[in-house]
């Protein structure tokens, strides 16, 4: 696997891990019970995808997925700013969900054509779950597309899809929370 491929996989894995974390923040408080179930399930899927992607890269580097997920500093994460935001407005959550799934679909389609069989195979597997995420995002998009609050949220968040490298101040806060348990034990602890 080339260094470039590893970077791309890490980029996707970081997006999925952080977005999965953010989506999970709706568990128990989504505006509808059905959305509580849907967002919790999507969050679980995204974190599962992150793990599988980290594992591919970790194998190349002779380390573990957990080390990639939790032992880097916030600066080293490659995620886009759009996934970092703690968004409690429903219209923004849906706008981010739609924008992300749209962009993720394109990226996965490319990855499915990879010459590396492990990468192509994993992309195909991930894409089978993403189909449900896209259906969910699309139905909301179709319903809200004329709503000014929603279109404003789309316009505000779209540029953040491309913002990688720099992070918002929300990532270090999330990182503290996300890695707290792991950091509480000495390095090398078997979980």
């Amino acid at each position, binding site marked *: 696997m080339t260094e470039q491929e590893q970077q791309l996989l890490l980029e996707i894995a970081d997006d999925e891990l952080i977005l999965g974390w953010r989506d999970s923040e709706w568990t128990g408080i989504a505006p*509808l*019970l*059905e959305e509580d*179930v*849907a967002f919790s*399930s999507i969050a679980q899927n995204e974190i599962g995808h992150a793990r599988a992607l980290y594992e591919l890269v970790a194998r190349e580097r002779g380390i573990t997925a957990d080390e990639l997920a939790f032992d880097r500093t916030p600066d080293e994460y490659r995620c886009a700013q759009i996934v970092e935001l703690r968004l409690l407005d429903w219209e923004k959550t849906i706008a981010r969900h739609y924008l992300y799934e749209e962009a993720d679909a394109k990226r996965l389609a490319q990855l499915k054509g990879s010459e590396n069989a492990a990468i192509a195979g994993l992309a195909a597997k991930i894409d089978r779950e993403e189909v*449900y995420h896209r*259906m*969910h995002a699309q*139905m909301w998009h*179709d*319903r809200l597309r004329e709503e000014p609050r929603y279109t404003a949220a789309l316009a505000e968040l779209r540029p953040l899809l491309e913002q990688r490298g720099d992070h918002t101040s929300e990532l270090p806060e999330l990182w503290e929370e996300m890695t707290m348990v792991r950091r509480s034990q000495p390095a090398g602890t078997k979980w």
Partner: protein
Amino acid sequence: MIYEVFRQERKGQPFQHAGSVEAADDHFADVYAREQYGRRGESTALWIVPRSAVMEIHEFVDELNRNYHRVDGYPLKEKLKEARDRAGTAATAGDR
């Protein structure tokens, strides 16, 4: 709107009530029902029905009291007990 969801576990088996989802329209109901009852291989098919489309019957009037149409129309238990009591009494009387 409330939709009732029925699922079929395996081909050829009857559909059974799985639960309900609250959804803004048919499209949302479709996605929610798939999410909650279909996407983990637990169903081969789903029926999704607006609750308002379900005809309900709760009262079953039996004006002529023709309970002999039913298998429980003859409560045998009571009659049997009476018969046993009678027989028991008769037997005891005979012993004397």
